């Protein structure tokens, strides 16, 4: 069985809309300022569906799988239309 993936957040992109918490209430809670607190470890198998929904629903495309280098390049970078080091 393959290792469970972890979530990762682009803190600069995140605007604290809280959509991820709504999509993944058993996985993500919001802090005092409305920003998501992610689970420490990998996403448990039974919460993968919630995690995927949170990633897909984020309006800022700030949430991603940690293993994939897509935060500032690749698909997410193109979607967001910006690069870290222009």
């Amino acid at each position, binding site marked *: 069985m393959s290792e469970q993936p972890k979530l990762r957040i682009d803190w600069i992109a995140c605007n604290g809309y809280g959509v991820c918490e709504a999509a993944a209430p058993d996985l993500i809670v919001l802090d005092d300022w409305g920003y998501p607190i992610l689970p420490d470890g990998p996403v448990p198998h039974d919460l993968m569906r919630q995690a995927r929904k949170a990633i897909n629903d984020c309006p800022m495309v700030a949430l991603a799988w940690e293993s994939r280098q897509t935060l500032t390049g690749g698909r997410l970078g193109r979607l967001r239309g910006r690069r*870290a080091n222009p």
Partner: protein
Amino acid sequence: MQPTERLLAGPPLDGRAEPLSRHHARLGSLPPLSPDQMVGALEATGLLGRGGAGFPVGRKWRAILEQQGGAAPVVVANGAEGEPESAKDRVLMTHRPHLVIDGAVLAARTLGADRVELYLGREHTQAVAAMRAAVEERPAHDRRLLHIVEAPIGYVAGESTAVVHYVNSKDARPTTTPPRMSERGVRNRPTLVQNVESLAQAALIARHGPDWFRERGRGANRGTALVTIAGPVRHEGVAEIELGTPLAELVEIAGGLTGTPQAVLVGGYFGTWAPIEAAWSLPLEPASLQAAGLTFGCGLVRLLDARSCGVDYSARIMDFLAAGSALQCGPCKFGLADLAGASGRVAAFDARPTDLYDIDRWTGLVTGRGACRHPDGAAQQMGTAMAVFADDFASHVHRRRCLASGAMIGARR
């Protein structure tokens, strides 16, 4: 007691830069080492970066050396020194600019870089002038390589991703990693961002070798380091010490005490507080400090007098760091502001019932939740202040009285 002088050896530190002729007469030119020899020498020294994060210098250079085949790398000498109480980088650049430039040129030569950016804090006018004049003194092949960039004033402007961001687009705010700058930094080229003291150390290591470097030092981390000592000592300022020198000995080097310190902030505004008794005989050296829960950071050693209020001091630092946030990441933007607000109220005997609880909780909550480590550093300073000045924090809240200064409610900060 005489300080250990390597970086600061040579003419007296009287505000004048050592000219190139004198620098050459004293140290000779850089020896022709192969990239692998040079990086191997750095690795053998165990030299840790002196900008604050303490990343191994050899490993940093190696990571870029291994990016062969792509575009030529860029070297950035980081002399922003945004740490308000630290002066070691500007003292070094003001008096020994050619040693710093040697280090930068050496890095470029070793890594195959065709451009060196000298990133200098624009508020450090003396250091900037010395570095400018020093660049003019260099031979044409060095001058073609060297470019001075005046960094904007600001605590995060010296953070390495902010440095690269500013060189690229005049925006000194940190960026998200990945990509790592060893892969894509300045103009998407592999980039070495290295503190100016680290570069100066490399320039000496190239000349004298790793065994010479390791002759000095009393702990796991070897060599000498520049530190800034502040507080109730006769001579506040910059000193070069053998790593592992106990705090007590540094105080002697600084001319002895002129007051009674109660605590010490080690490592900078991102650093850690310790009670003076616990820190007094502690070796100033990254590994020993880390074992004691402290940080070496940028080498700031800030003694706090027994009559000065640690609650107030740490709240002011918190306020400074909140104002220094790039305001890009939510937990840093709102968390540091709330931490500054709460600690400021405690310091001013105006605490809300939940303030102490919230400060404790928020320091945990902002840690690790930003693009850079600004919130982590701010929380570390605040958290250790809460522990070291615990009685005074409680007294400020519950008795509305300061244990150190005797000040009471009604006193304004």
